[in-house]
């Protein structure tokens, strides 16, 4: 199968997952929001569904990576990798969402806020790659 078809199929599975989560639990499948909620004081039922989603994501996703012999690491060096982690955590908390919450779910709800967020993080990520890979070279 060509890689674009597998990518499209992967995207459809992600969309179906977000749809099923909304249909069953009434929740938006935004990974940053789900993870952030785990570090917040909340009811045990609220904590349970978040932890279950994360466990399913990391478990089944991790197993699929092994089946596909995928183990590519990030090219970022350790200090940059840790800085990137902090920026992703801080930014998604401040901006109320990431690729899944604003991208997959927000665009699916035709949210103007999410459209602005997606265009903004796409633009800043593209500029970041341009600066680090072409202007300063790594």
């Amino acid at each position, binding site marked *: 199968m060509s890689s674009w078809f*597998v990518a499209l199929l992967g995207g459809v599975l992600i969309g179906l997952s977000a749809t099923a989560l909304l249909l069953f639990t009434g929740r938006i499948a935004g990974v940053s929001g789900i993870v952030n909620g785990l570090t917040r004081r909340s009811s045990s039922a609220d904590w349970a569904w978040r932890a279950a989603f994360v466990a399913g994501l990391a478990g089944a996703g991790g197993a699929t990576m092994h089946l596909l012999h995928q183990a590519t690491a990030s090219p*970022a060096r350790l200090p940059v990798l840790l800085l990137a*982690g902090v920026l992703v955590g801080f930014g998604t908390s401040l*901006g*109320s969402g990431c690729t899944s919450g604003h991208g997959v779910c927000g665009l699916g709800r035709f949210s103007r806020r999410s459209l*602005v967020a997606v265009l903004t993080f796409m633009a800043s990520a593209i500029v970041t790659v341009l600066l680090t890979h072409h202007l300063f070279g790594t």
Partner: protein
Amino acid sequence: MKAALAALLCGALFGIGLALARMTDPLVVIGFLDVFGDFDPTLAFVLVGATMTTAVAFHFVLRRARPIVAAQFELPATRTIDLPLILGAAIFGVGWGLAGYCPGPALVGAGAGVPTALLFLPAMIAGGLAHRFVAARYNGKSRPTRISVFRS
């Protein structure tokens, strides 16, 4: 309990989709973002596949009075396009471009035991906590980000 089981299965499907689509490979992600260089458009199909699915299916789901195993739909309440949204998205994009990880793929990579994902993840959680700490000091309390939506 039923909600947790549903969330477990949805999380699993989400993770399988991310790995199949190779969003879990930081080099593929950086290749997608490298529009002025060695551009790899594959991930555009992931976004198209996912948003086409939700755009059609959410419409039907949200016509229901309530979800199957919960009392109500919990949708983001904020409508205004404000500075925190734009600044937060811009900061997130810098981190995404630097490492090639956004939150979902970082969790999947950690689940697979990829060392860079295992290092990225605690830094990401610390970043989220840091924002909440800063926001609490600025506002006196953290901003409410969602309200419950009753549909009957």
